[in-house]
């Protein structure tokens, strides 16, 4: 375990640990803005809506004569149905439906469709579907050098976009009316935030899985909020918490056989949140207890 943490347990485990840390950092940073703009549940719906796309991507690649396992094809399908899910939420919200009802309907319908498609694929016997279901909860066992490089490049791109847009995103979240008056395209910022979130979801498919990626977006940001009153600082702390959870989680799951990576990372995020709740300097339980009288 210790050797896994210190990146000394083999080349593959080292790749996984670095990749998971990068993913956690990007997710924590993006998640801070998702929380501030109150898009956590929409992000969850979008993550679940990737599943039918993964199945369809597989089928499309098999139909074209491939094995159906190529990551770019699966990700393209995932992005397509995720965007469709996002559009469906927005279209439903324009009716009388409230946003939470629209999210509930879209999330479950898309996820259900995804499970049906995956089941059909298993019974079809075409291509090589073994391991396709790991996108649900994440598995770093079969992670390759290519996956880690993808994570590094994707994470760096996400962070670069975030660095440029950070003030505009914060202002849009805080006071969209004022942001618009200051010349910020608030709709463009909302779209950009959703694209950044989609990028994190796609990057996280192998590591955390689509069911729990929302936790890596939301929980580090919530924990970080307890440590600072400045949006930029909150984002950085959230990134660090996400990176630590990703790194330690990947190391743990590499040590214990069959331990899925996603749930372990999420539990570590929650541990950081619980610790913040107790220890935070201004809002922590400890401070409230010691300053009670």
């Amino acid at each position, binding site marked *: 375990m210790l050797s896994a943490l210190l990146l000394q347990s083999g080349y593959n485990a080292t790749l996984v640990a670095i990749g998971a840390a990068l993913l956690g950092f990007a997710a924590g940073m993006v998640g801070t803005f998702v929380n*501030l703009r109150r898009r956590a549940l929409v992000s969850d719906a979008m993550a679940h809506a990737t599943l039918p796309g993964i199945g369809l991507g597989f089928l499309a690649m098999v139909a074209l004569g491939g094995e159906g396992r190529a990551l770019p094809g699966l990700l393209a399908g995932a992005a397509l149905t995720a965007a469709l899910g996002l559009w469906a939420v927005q279209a439903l919200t324009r009716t009388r439906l409230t946003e939470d009802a629209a999210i509930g309907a879209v999330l479950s319908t898309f996820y259900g469709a995804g499970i049906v498609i995956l089941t059909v694929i298993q019974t079809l016997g075409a291509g090589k579907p073994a391991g396709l279901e790991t996108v649900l909860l994440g598995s770093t066992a079969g992670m390759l050098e290519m996956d880690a490089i993808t994570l590094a490049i994707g994470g760096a791109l996400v962070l670069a976009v975030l660095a*440029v*847009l950070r*003030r*505009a995103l*914060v*202002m849009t*979240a*805080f*006071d969209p*009316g*004022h*942001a*618009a*008056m*200051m*010349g*910020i395209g608030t709709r463009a910022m909302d779209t950009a935030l959703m694209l950044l979130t989609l990028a994190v979801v796609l990057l996280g498919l192998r590591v955390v899985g689509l069911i729990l990626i929302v936790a890596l977006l939301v929980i580090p940001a919530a924990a970080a*909020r307890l440590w*600072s*009153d*400045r*949006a930029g*600082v*909150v984002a950085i702390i959230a990134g660090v918490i996400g990176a630590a959870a990703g790194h330690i989680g990947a190391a743990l799951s590499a040590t214990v056989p069959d331990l899925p990576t996603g749930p372990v990372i999420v539990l570590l995020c929650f541990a950081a949140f619980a610790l913040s709740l107790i220890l935070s300097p201004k809002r922590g339980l400890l401070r409230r207890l010691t300053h009670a009288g």
Partner: protein
Amino acid sequence: MVDPIPLTAEPALAIRDLRVSYGANPVLDGVTASLARGAMTAIIGPNGAGKSTLLKAALGLIPTTGGTALAFGKPVAQALPRIAYVPQRAAVDWDFPARALDVVLMGMYRRTGLLSRIGKAETAAAMDCLSRLGMADFATRQIGALSGGQQQRVFLARALAQGAELYLLDEPFAGVDAATEAAIVTLLKALRDEGRSIIAVHHDLSTVSAYFDRVLLLNRRTIAEGPVASTFRQEAVARTYGNQIATAIPA
């Protein structure tokens, strides 16, 4: 200082036949008004008269079903760099991770832009704006930890940081303490004396004459608009409110 106002000056805000509906209910039923430059104008009317809606619709922050709004003779969308807007306090998320200074710096976004960083000059200018409202000592407080009056001053400091020529304020005196009210009035009058234009939604009929030069009486449409002395009269106010509460006002 703003340039001296030429005699032929366009009004600060010219609204023509502005219409807004929430569902089937008209909130603004064809409002036309011409609000003068270099003056402090109060927008007065009962609850549901569409006062806040008028500000938001004129700024293009909510969809309209008809009409136009010109600021300084140009469509408002083109004049936005010259306009500052202070929303109602209730419309703000006070738990947001931002300090008073951060909020004021948001008023300087056009200056700092997308890529450039906030430097010492911007921070100093923002501190100046906070000082003008007596808020320099609270610059690093999270906004939710401020009193209602202090929060209102922070938002006014943000408007000040924009260096605007036209200030639209939605109930700037609602729920603030007497000291804040006095500080805000002093600042607004100073801005007016520099040639800037102030338009404020206002609730307290007893202070209209003391604070404002002009008044717009509104109840879904314009009832009257003009100088306080000749327009803010019992008969017109009673017509605006649809009853006889106007006993404190000269007949």
